């Protein structure tokens, strides 16, 4: 009851944030355009058109073209979600630590672990609801209007939400330590850049300094932090192979698995740190 009270409050707060409302409006406009644009001519059920122009003939590898479109929509969503994570909810952990607010929360019969986890889960849920709205909308539009019921596209939202949960573990611990919304946003951005750098470290960061210790430090960082870039890339590969990339890599669970452990570690560290703090 207490945990869910805090969770419910956080979701409500997240959904009222300007950034998320803006995302919701943009997502709604895209969905409206797709609803108006995608159609299935009654006289040619094999054809998918967009604003009256032929998009794909499903029986002739046309599904790849639709998948390509879905992958593009998915990629745009990922970009949005990182922005949302940074500007929409990264400040939600520091905001409960503000003087006058934290005193109220900590005086209630709620453990610090419950308070922190309810807050983090609430923030993630706020983002997830927006994502599900968009993915479900796209999936329904392609299903109802083009006859393409692409279940893999629908399931990819779970991977993106999972990636965001992992990403938020970094935001949480940074927010707790800095107690500043500004720093949280900035460091969330830095982390997303570092995550990309670590993903391609073998061909990138390794070459900056040919030193084994340095390479091992980069490897350690790669495995000790959530592999945001790897997870988001793989969430796209769930949908299908992009048609214009030669030999695209196959989907792998490994970034999700490694990130599970690093995320658990970061959330545990956050709880431990939060429990020891004086406010």
């Amino acid at each position: 009851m207490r945990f869910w009270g805090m969770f419910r409050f956080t979701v409500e707060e997240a959904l009222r944030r300007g950034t998320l409302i803006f995302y919701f409006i943009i997502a709604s406009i895209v969905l409206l355009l797709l609803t108006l644009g995608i159609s299935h001519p009654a006289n040619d059920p094999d054809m998918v058109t967009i604003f009256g122009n032929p998009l794909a003939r499903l029986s002739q590898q046309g599904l790849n073209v639709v998948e390509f479109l879905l992958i593009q929509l998915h990629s745009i969503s990922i970009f949005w979600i990182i922005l949302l994570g940074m500007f929409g909810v990264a400040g939600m952990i520091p905001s409960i630590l503000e003087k006058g607010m934290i005193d109220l929360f900590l005086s209630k019969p709620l453990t610090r672990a419950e308070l922190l986890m309810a807050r983090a889960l609430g923030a993630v849920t706020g983002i997830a609801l927006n994502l599900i709205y968009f993915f479900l909308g796209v999936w329904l539009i392609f299903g109802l209007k083009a006859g393409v019921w692409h279940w893999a596209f629908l399931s990819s939202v779970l991977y993106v939400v999972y990636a965001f949960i992992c990403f938020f573990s970094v935001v949480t611990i940074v927010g707790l330590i800095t107690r500043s919304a500004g720093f949280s946003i900035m460091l969330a951005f830095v982390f997303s850049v570092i995550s990309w750098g670590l993903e391609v470290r073998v061909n990138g960061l390794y070459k900056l300094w040919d030193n084994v210790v340095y390479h091992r430090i980069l490897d350690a960082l790669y495995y000790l932090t959530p592999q945001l870039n790897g997870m988001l890339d793989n969430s796209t590969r769930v949908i299908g192979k992009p048609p214009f990339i030669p030999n695209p890599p196959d989907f792998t669970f490994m970034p999700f698995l490694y990130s599970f452990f690093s995320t658990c570690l970061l959330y545990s560290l956050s709880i431990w740190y939060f429990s020891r703090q004086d406010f």
Partner: protein
Amino acid sequence: MDAIQTLDLTKYYRSGAFKRNNIPALEKVSLSVEEGEIFGLLGPNGAGKTTFVKLILSIVHPTSGTATILGYPLGQRALKEHCGYLPENHRYPGFLNAVDTLIFFGRLNGLQESILRDKAYSLLEIVGLKDWAKVKIKKFSKGMLQRLGLAQALINDPKLLFLDEPTDGVDPIGRKEIRDLLLNLKAQGTTIFLNSHLLSEVEMICDRVAILNKGKVVRIGTIAELTTQKLSYIIQLSSPITKDIQERLQQTILPIEYKDSSLIVTLHDKTELNAIIDILRAGTIGIEGMTQQKTSLEDYFIQIMKGENNL
């Protein structure tokens, strides 16, 4: 039974590079608050009043010492179920309205959803915010937020209520209403722990007070005990005293003050009182009454803080 009992409660805040500097906030504070009383904690800024309450509610962790609150050791969740807290400079999520704020904090207290709405409205009526129930609290004035904070602290019908500057920013009529509310709660058996700078208010409603200075309890007692100057008396006389008697009195005891047919004397010990009465009776001056002189809590507090009180 004591609602609060602390033993050598100590808190040092750490600061500086690598947190090597220890700043004392509370040092070996031992005090007890009885159930059903209104207890005031006084002290200048930085004396440790807020830290004391935060320690009790586990908002900060003690460096050493122990405490028992309503029979529970520090840090127990069950303890907080029976406590209400109005912090100083409290902040609420601005997107909520007054009634939703109370419902939210009721949920955090684990209250049943079915009773929360009625309870929230009833509390808003008590604190005079019924007409503002549906207004977003970002539009509230300081005084209104203070009233809302009080309602929030009462949402779980606490047995022990901690109030940090509850009348801060509240107009005189509102202050009177809050005082009446606190007295009403006391009559219902609620123990109230009050931190306040408004000494006149503390004097009006508190049963006992403790004075903190630099993290240490320097005085503790009932208002009467602290404000009564034990060896200072006002003697009301039936007729004016002559110069001769006045001189004899001044030879016996100093200092002495005579005004409006009353003699104000400060004694070294009580035996001097008999000598004064003997001189007055010998001069055929009638004694209509005699009372111990009292000082205001504010004057007493200032004297203590200046280190000039030798009572």
